[in-house]
């Protein structure tokens, strides 16, 4: 338990140092609030902002989670298809890249036109598109990284492709999948917030940010940014925990523990 706490000391230390530095810089150089508000000012803005920013964060976070789930699922499915049929891989990869390189700012109006401004699906789908590619490309590599001898073993059991996928390729792809998930988790929040800049319900972080920035309330803007970060870090930690639980066998997790 103490050892566990000790793991967090560096992170907390950096946090304290960073905040102190931030505050000092703002004070010493007398930086105006609209360029960079001081941490104390942001903290002071929290109680006032809370009733508005908290529900907005929850709404955004849920959309991000929904998109993350959808995009990850589709990414894994597509990767499974691509790993199984080279034809799919050759044809679908360029398309996946195409979809992914579509900047969110244009996905937003298209998604609004497709699903409706007010439909939660427009945000979920934008996030899913954004998340899809990192998951798929990592998973394709992961699914195809099984060693020849393991394949031979499965072949000797006349394992069919489904068994191969479930018992060999998917577990073997776990190191890739968890890396992809970490990237995807971060992307999902960016995606959701940027999408919300382009309309939809007003009780969302993206809208909150535009409103407060437009009103020059940058302390409030930063409360939203900090909340988004907190959610992002939480999601990341959750993934890391699951990773440690289910991937303790992998050398990269063992190596990280030392």
């Amino acid at each position, binding site marked *: 338990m103490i050892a566990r706490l000790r793991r967090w000391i560096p992170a907390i230390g950096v946090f304290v140092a960073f905040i102190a530095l931030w505050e000092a810089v703002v004070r010493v150089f007398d930086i105006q609030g*609209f360029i960079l508000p001081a941490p104390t000012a942001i903290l002071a803005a929290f109680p006032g902002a809370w009733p508005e920013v908290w529900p907005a964060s929850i709404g955004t976070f849920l959309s991000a989670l929904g998109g993350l789930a959808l995009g990850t699922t589709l990414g894994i499915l597509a990767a499974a298809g691509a790993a199984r049929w080279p034809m799919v891989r050759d044809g679908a990869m360029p398309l996946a890249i195409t979809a992914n390189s579509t900047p969110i700012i244009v996905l937003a109006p298209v998604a*609004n036109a497709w699903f409706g*401004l007010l439909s939660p699906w427009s945000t979920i789908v934008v996030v899913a598109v954004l998340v899809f590619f990192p998951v798929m490309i990592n998973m394709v590599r992961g699914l195809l990284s099984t060693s020849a001898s393991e394949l031979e073993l499965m072949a000797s059991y006349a394992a069919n492709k489904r068994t191969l996928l479930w018992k060999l390729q998917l577990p073997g792809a776990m190191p890739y999948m968890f890396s992809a998930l970490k990237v995807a988790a971060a992307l999902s929040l960016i995606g959701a917030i940027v999408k919300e800049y382009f309309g939809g319900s007003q009780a969302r972080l993206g*809208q909150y940010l535009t409103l407060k*920035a*437009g*009103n*020059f309330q940058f302390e409030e803007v930063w409360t939203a940014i900090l909340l988004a970060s907190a959610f992002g870090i939480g999601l990341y930690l959750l993934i890391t925990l699951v990773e440690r639980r289910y991937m303790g066998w992998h050398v990269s997790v063992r190596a990280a523990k030392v």
Partner: protein
Amino acid sequence: GGDDDGGELTPVNLQLQWFAQAQFAGYYAAVDQGFYEDEGLDVTILEGAVEIVPQQVVASGQAEFGLAWVPKALVSNEEGAGLVNIGQVFQRSGTLMVSWADSGITKPEDWADKTVGNWGFGNEFELTAAIEKFGVQNVNLVAQNFDMEALLNREVDAAEAMIYNEYAQVLEATNEATGSLYQPSDLNVIDFNDVGTAMLQDSIWVSEEWLASNEDVAEKFLKASFRGWMYCRDNPDECVEIVLEAGPTLGTSHQTWQMNEINGLIWPSPNGIGVMDQALWDQTIEVATSQGVISADPGSGAFRTDLAEKALADIDGDTTGSSWTRVEVTLNPGGE
């Protein structure tokens, strides 16, 4: 009075609220026609985007001049931006609430129990003021994108639209039922100038601090800009061309429409272009304070007319545009 000391131009930046379009034609024309150069200024026009707040850009010193709506700039000032309005270019508000003719929304009270779109970003104050002013109940406010999809898809019952831009976009869209463009008769329009909650829009802002030592630059900038706008009043088609050059992807008929409507927001300028109309200022402040947009009257220091007046004194030609008349513009599909 040009600068005589041999072509040493003073570089300054102008931050727009949005990307190049006829809304900013006067400034582009002033660059194109060399009006700024005449004043010894080298003006770089910085285009805007969704997330750009011109007040922030000006306050942080990235641009000397910024365009902003009056209420938005006043909000910024309450947060310490320290900006001064030195030229009130638009004399009236260009904001409309557009709804379908069959929805029967003809006055603010009809918004009750309806879904009403707005842009946020400080562009919504006229709407919220009207809602309050008429005591409209149960308005479901949603953020609309900067296109008119929400209205076209009937996701919202009424949508915010600028007369020079989004309103035109609806009229450039094809009615799939008839196969031809939507017509003004398909739409009901509520004009905030009529509602009485109109607020002053595009105006030129500088930081107080900067202005203290640069009044001459400010005056020169105003002079050249006003000449640009006058040029666009008298030569709208040329100005449309200039704007099209700046943004090679814009629609021609759309910009022509916009030029015409923008001229309508500027002209006539009874006190001369850029000089604040105190009555409209007072209305803006009153609406803004009563809405809680700003907490208190900013007082008389928030705008100055002296610089604009001095600039006007230097300009030959019609600075009030009392004889300007609107022309008929035909919109093409897609604004082309």
